[in-house]
């Protein structure tokens, strides 16, 4: 319960190219995130934002440096352990929502609970509760394919929060939404994550949205700079 929920220490991530060349996507990234705080990451496309998120979620491994998730060193952890860790500690929100269209909203939200093998009733109750907080409870049994972008992202948010993860990661959460929906989703994201006491790390293009966070960091050519203004 103490300590930062996420820590990057001199993290490097390089991808091998043809021959002996490598592409360094991240170099010497150093930062930490505490529970209950929010951190926005800005940068141009190709600057390594998605990679950083992948590393944070344990989906990818750094080539150098250490990533600590809730004090646990992710580097040499086998895939299964990382999956379990991710299950309990991380919630993900994506730019493209990634809901299963053939399932209902409720079922989509329940997904992490199913993966983890939680009690079906408890899962469903929590899912309903979350949907209620985003004002979608009355359409919980509609198929997810029939929603608008904003509605879908709200459902995705519920899904991410289902198991009360201490770390919330969002990759361009409003990238596919219009202005109004985007503001609504950002608002919900910040509020709910704060309510749940989770640490929030999100990647964005928009300066206005970055400004809503407690801290802002800039990624340029794989290096982290703190950006003011």
């Amino acid at each position, binding site marked *: 319960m103490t300590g930062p929920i996420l820590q990057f220490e001199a993290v490097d991530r390089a991808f091998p190219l043809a021959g002996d060349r490598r592409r360094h996507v991240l170099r010497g990234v150093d930062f930490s995130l505490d529970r209950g705080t929010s951190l926005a990451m800005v940068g141009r496309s190709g600057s390594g934002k998605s990679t950083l998120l*992948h590393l944070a979620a344990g989906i990818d491994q750094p080539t150098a440096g250490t990533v600590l998730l809730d004090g646990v060193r992710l580097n040499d952890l086998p895939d299964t352990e990382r999956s379990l860790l991710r299950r309990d500690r991380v919630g993900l929100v994506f730019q493209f929502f990634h809901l299963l*269209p053939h399932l209902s909203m409720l079922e989509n939200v329940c997904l992490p609970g199913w*993966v*983890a*093998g939680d009690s079906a009733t408890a899962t469903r109750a929590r899912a309903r509760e979350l949907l209620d907080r985003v004002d979608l409870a009355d359409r919980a049994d509609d198929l997810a394919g029939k929603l608008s972008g904003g509605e879908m992202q709200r459902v995705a948010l519920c899904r991410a929060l289902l198991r009360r993860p201490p770390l919330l990661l969002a990759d361009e959460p409003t990238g596919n939404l219009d202005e109004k929906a985007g503001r609504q989703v950002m608002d919900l994201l910040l509020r709910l994550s704060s309510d749940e006491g989770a640490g929030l790390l999100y990647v964005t293009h928009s300066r206005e949205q970055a400004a809503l966070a407690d801290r802002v960091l800039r990624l340029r050519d794989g290096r982290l700079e703190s950006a003011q203004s």
Partner: protein
Amino acid sequence: MNPRLLRAALAHWRQARTLTLLTVFGVALGVASVVCIQTLNQGALAAFGGGMKAVSGDADLTVLGHGPDLDENLYPTVLAHPDVTAAWPLVRAWGRLAGHEDAYIEIVGVDVFAPVRFPVRLGDAGHATGDVTRFADLLHVPGWVALTPAYAEELGLAAGDTFTVAVADRLVTLEVGALVDFQRAAPLASRKLALMDISQAQHLFGHRGRVQQFDVQVRPGVAPEAVAAGLQERLGPGAQVLTPAQREQNAAGLLAAFRLNLTALSLISVLVGVFLIFSAVHASLVRRRREFGLLRSLGASRRQVLGLILLETAVLGLAGTALGLPLGYAAALLNMETVSATLTSIYLLSEIEQMHLPPLLVAVAVVVGLGGALLGALLPALDIARRDPVVLLGAAGLPERLSRLAPRLALVGVGVAAAVMVWYLGGGRAYKVSGFVLAFFLMVVLPLWTPLLLRETVGRIPPGGFGWRLGLRGLASRLQSTSFAVAALAVTVSMLVGITLLIGSFRATLDTWIGQTLVADIYVTGASWQRDLGQTWLADDTVDLLVEFDGVAAADLQRRLETRTDQGRRVRVVAFERRGDAQRRKISRVPLLAGDAETVERRLLAESVALISEPLARQAGLDVGDTLRLRGPHGTTPLAVVGIGYDYASENGVVFVSRATLEGMFGPGGVAAVALTMAPGRDPGAVMDALRVALDGRAVELRSNQRLRAEVMDIFDQTFAVTRILQAMALVIAVCGVSLTLLIMGRERATELALYRCIGATRGQLFRLGLSEGAGLGVLGLALGLAGGAVLAMILILLINRDWFGWTIRFALPTADLVWQGVWILGGAVAAAVYPALRASRTPATELTREDLL
């Protein structure tokens, strides 16, 4: 067509190796099925043709008798015809090699002084071995035969060695006088041909005054058919004059039903293969949609894209054909013995010893492979070609249309089914092929109903957890892929189940029937009984010994031969005579379909009437009271039909008459088989042992009741052995379809799977999900297939069988067989899912690209 585009295709194929391989494999298996079956079909006829050529050489006509032989005194009449330039007699018989299990030899007795065109050149050192000057020995050295070098080697015999052959109940010693390579001149001839002088052949294997045929050479420039007609007139109704083409046609006619059924089965395999191709091509095209979108936006027309896709498919189709041809041929070779055994034991034709791939069949295979591939690819190709470039390039996935179309398709299916039923009831059932038409449309309608069924069944399952229910629900999310896999599996399973039910019912019916008809305790036949066409029989003293043996209460003597009805239909005539204590005799009656048992029995013994078997009655349209006319040496004899009995032993029909009646038609002749009933309290086993001692030195076979029943069932099982191969093939295709579908789904759902990984699912969980999807496909295919199979079984048993054979088959459920097949199919589906599930489980979470799941 730009060669660079083709190179791009090659690159794609290398990338999507599994898809490409499976497409090729699908074509290969479809082609292999067709090639296998048609090679066997051809082989069967070619063996007959080759045998004909080997024995008759280039004879223009052959004179045969009605029944097992012909009066040799017709020879001068044949020679007297003005357009006949030569004619020669042949005596032919089958002998069973003593000491070799199930090895036969065909004896051909020739007149070496006739202008025989037999492809024998005994003076040519290249063909013959052995002292040529001793050739004259063939006239007076007892048992002199000429064997082929191949067979002699197989039997371990050299020139000068003796060996023993059983003919009916006699043991005959033969001496290898010379080795002559008949096969050089007629490559398809059996290596089991042996040449003898006609006098010895008649003495040892035949009957004085009777030969099997005269081969005739006609004056050049004169049409053989005209001469045949003239000869027929001179010879009268006791003989028939046939050209080689007519003889081959007769053999083909015999096998017509057998071959048709095999062909139908192979076509179903092709159908399943086409399904597979449809599915694979569709998936492949969807994957490459951006590539096509790019092409279109660069200016390629719809037609060009269509052409490119079809060309690619054509290449794959050719590759599949190239693979399928040798596969099919190899499969045919593997099955050659089985089919051969069927030909000899059931149809009494020559066995197949070698086969070759006729060029026409290669052409057919190419058409099937290429055509099937193109047919399968046509719809998906049109679909892709018709879409706008924007859609193709778009981020969103291609809209899943099948879900919406499902009800409409089902409706079409209902419509088709209704239309077919209307046609059938309205008059279609008069056609002999109507059963096949129904079966075909059943196979068409099943896939049309599949999408809706899938959508409404698994599509409504509440997932409830990350397990098999989620997996099943997932199947409904990609109907375009899963429907086809399920449909293909369902069609195959239908075929499997249908045929299993047919075979099972048939077998059960046969078993019951055997129980009713084979009631004697001991059955005695000559050693060469199985190949005999009625020309050899047990010696009189053998028969007397059997009838009067201690412990025997009654005996049924059976004489049989083959002839034709006046309509040209080939029938087996079985004549019986009862000896012994009528009271003690166990009543063995042919179970009757029509006619009163007592009356029938009484009339058969007293009058010149006949009891006919059900297939004959149905095929010839005969009922009790009608007249059956049979051809014999003295013309046609009318026989009143007094009863119709069930008989499953022959598809051509059997005519039962009394021995006296048969003698009236064909003259005197001996019995081929004797069935003995024991006196009460006597042990059949002990009597059999005593008989063996008493019959020592005679080549008889004694079979107990059980053994005979077992043999009959063995022959039955053998007949259907070939269908098992086809079923296995089709099943492999369908299971490949499952694998393919899951691979495609894995690829298409990469994002979805990555999502699960992001949520924290382990690889093991994804693997199990994939397996459950495979099992789900299996179960669905199985269920649908069971339903379809039941309907197909009914069509087979009630319609096709009735139209082509005429047996009454009682429906029976071979539960054990079906259960085992279900287990295999399910197991196969799960096994097919392993690799795709493994691949799916390895989907990295980073696969969440800039595509959406929608």
